[in-house]
């Protein structure tokens, strides 16, 4: 754990240094730029609240991908599951009119149901036709994308708007800010705690983890591989769907065109950077959100274009993923050197 933490921190520092080099080459002052970047994303309550709120879809789709990958299920359908969750939550918000205390949980459940629904299509395709979820989830992303685009452009379009979007959902379904922090942050942390317990404490979670590492061993040990696959698919679909619902309920309060844009792909990337670790996914998710959030503010304060944040993200991914193996090799070598010294000392002691 501490090893992972250290290698993560070192990776981030190296990535920031490389980013600084790029800025210098472009003629910008890296210190001022970073200052501006983190000033609007981390320093202070309000920037932090924005960063955390923006991290919600990244963390949830990241957790979805981490749990799936660590269980040996290649669910790449988070983008589709996210927009389906967002659509269902939006529809609930448009047609239901209940007090907040009922509205919020119902919309959240609808979002989860949307994600599960879309993930179950891939699960059924696997069950009936033994179709690889790798390809079916990817293809279903496109279907979900165009389906939601159609839904917000035709049946559910807000006719007062100039671009495809739904009307705003009932105010009762809006997630409030509590002490400046949006409720979606708390819901995300609860989801994180729940999935951590499932993964690390439930009997099913044990089977998922072992199946992810060696499916044949798990099968021979009596684990029901097919049932576990279904469960993982649906649970990770639920997480992605929840992400979509929370985006709508916390943010624009409606389904806008391009709502799902890059959240889920960033989430999958974060899972890879975190090596499918759940806590790592949470921390990297917040950090990536800080960079994305800070980029906009940075563009306002300095004249550095916000695109630099994408350079920074790319460098981060490369440095951390490549550096992970390298650093652990280096640490292993240091440990080996200690052993050699110990082995060398022994004969001298014998002589003495």
């Amino acid at each position, binding site marked *: 754990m501490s090893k992972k933490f250290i290698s993560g921190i070192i990776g981030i520092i190296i990535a920031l240094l490389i980013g600084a080099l790029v800025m210098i080459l472009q003629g910008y002052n890296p210190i001022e730029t970073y200052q501006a970047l983190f000033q609007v994303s981390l320093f202070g309550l309000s920037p932090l609240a924005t960063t955390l709120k923006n991290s919600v879809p990244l963390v949830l789709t990241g957790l979805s991908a981490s749990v799936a990958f660590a269980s040996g299920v290649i669910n790449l359908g988070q983008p589709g599951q996210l927009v389906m969750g967002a659509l269902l939550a939006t529809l609930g918000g448009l047609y239901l009119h209940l007090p907040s205390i009922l509205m919020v949980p119902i919309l959240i459940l609808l979002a989860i149901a949307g994600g599960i629904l879309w993930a179950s299509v891939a699960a059924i395709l696997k069950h009936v036709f033994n179709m690889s979820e790798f390809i079916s989830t990817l293809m279903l992303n496109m279907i979900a994308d165009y389906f939601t685009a159609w839904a917000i452009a035709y049946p559910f379009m807000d006719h007062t708007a100039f671009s495809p979007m739904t009307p705003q959902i009932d105010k009762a379904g809006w997630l409030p800010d509590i002490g400046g922090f949006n409720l979606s942050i708390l819901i995300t942390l609860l989801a994180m705690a729940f999935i951590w317990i499932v993964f690390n404490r439930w009997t099913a979670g044990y089977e998922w983890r072992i199946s992810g*590492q060696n499916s044949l061993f798990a099968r021979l040990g*009596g684990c029901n591989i097919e049932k576990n696959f279904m469960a993982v698919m649906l649970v990770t679909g639920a997480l992605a769907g929840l992400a979509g619902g929370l985006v709508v309920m916390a943010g624009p309060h409606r389904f806008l065109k391009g709502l799902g844009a890059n959240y889920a792909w960033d989430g999958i990337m974060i899972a890879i950077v975190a090596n499918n670790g759940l806590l790592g996914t949470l921390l990297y998710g917040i950090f990536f959100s800080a960079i994305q959030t800070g980029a906009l503010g940075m563009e306002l304060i300095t004249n550095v274009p916000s695109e630099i944040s994408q350079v920074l993200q790319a460098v981060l991914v490369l440095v951390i993923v490549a550096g992970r193996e390298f650093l652990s090799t280096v640490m*292993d070598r240091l*440990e080996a050197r200690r*052993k050699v010294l110990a082995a060398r000392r022994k004969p001298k002691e014998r002589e003495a």
Partner: protein
Amino acid sequence: MKTAIDDLIIMRNIVKVYPPSVVAVDDVSITFRSGEIHALVGENGAGKTTLMKVLYGLVPKNAGEIVYRGKTVQFRNPGEAIAQGIGMVHQEIVLIPEYTVWQNVILGVEPVSILGHLDKEKARRLVQSKIDEFQFNLNPDAFVGEISVAAKQKVEILKLLYRNVSVLIMDEPTSVLTPQEIPQLFNELRRLRDSGHTIIFISHRLEEVLELSDRITVMRRGKKVDTVEAAATNKEDLARMMVGRNVIFTSQRTKHEPGKVVFRINDLSYIDSEGRQRLKNINLEVRAGEIVGVAGVEGNGQFELVNTIIGLIEPSQGSIKVNEQDITQASILERRKFISYVPQDRGKMGASLNASILENAIMTHHRLNKRFSLLNGLLLNYSQAKTFMNDLEARFSVVMASQFSPFKSLSGGNQQKVILGRELMLPSPFVLLDQPTRGLDVGSIEYVHQLVLKMRSEGRAVLLISAELEELFLIADRIIVLYRGEIVADLPVENTSVEEIGYLMLEGKTWKKNE
């Protein structure tokens, strides 16, 4: 009195640590004399191969010194070692099957004509002259893909001789050979020694080492135990040095009457998806307190027999019963209530290498053992799991750093102890063992045998599939022979012999009937 000139290679205080903390070679000093056959023996993981890889420049050493022909050397790669006259033949053979023998031999040091073309005639002639010089009985024009393993090994040796190597390191050369091919290899190695070559011979087969070598160095757990003259030692002494205590070479099996039938297979057949009959009308009973051994050349139905019993494949006909309960159609979990199972491939089937030792130890128990279940099976009781692991560790004397270390950090013998421990701590009446000693060293094999005999005395029914006939004769009560998917013999151990079973395995019938 040997002079210092005879000391061709002196390795002093060699240390090699594989990161992070596996001390493979621990302060070893060893001297190889010119013109001797020097055997390096030791169990798996004793450090023999690593020590030689250090000499050959394949693995950098962490400490120590190598003196070769009176000069301190450090080869950075095998190429430098070969240039100085030291060559190594590895366990696995690396030749190009589409090339002929002579093409393989010259690859890398091709004789070229003035124009820079490969001079095929000269190359072939040079290879032929080497073959003649060492009487290798090889056809230089044969394609390597079409010659026997023994011949391929000769090609590997020839490659080194062609490069004028005078020190030849052979890493377990006999492990890939059939018993008939071994004497020929030994004659060739003796001829090489007599023509002035030095041979370092890595092995863990004691008879061979005693027969072939002049001197023997025994290694144990990365350390050198001793170097002895082959003429002045014997198998028992070597075995004791290898494992650090007396090894039982005779069976400790006690005679006792088996109980009721626990495991029963009725008229079992399996036809695979390509229509080939893999199992044919198998009838088999195993009684409580009985060990039934399954012998057979690999690929005669053992794989399918094991897989139908454990539930990976569905038989085409017939039934499998444990304690009169039909499990032919049962799920794997349902079967595991009755069956302890040790698969032949630890890393692929018996464990998850990257998961912790603890996580590997509780597999199957996590569903079947009530003490692991909280909230009606929803939660896994990890504190019970830790207690269970402590118990397993103590009962099966597992040597490990921590329960939470990855399974792959264990040695092969300890991995097998965890797997056997896990399976034996299940209360199942029937035990299915598929090659439980494959790839283990002498000490671990003995331990596994003791455990299997203990299962027998506990009154479990044991089905033991093994490729080692000695093993079956050591611990089984009955031996059945599988030949092309059929049981062709079912004999009590007392009434048969290794020769008879061997014949049955190859021919599918008894020789006696032919007389």
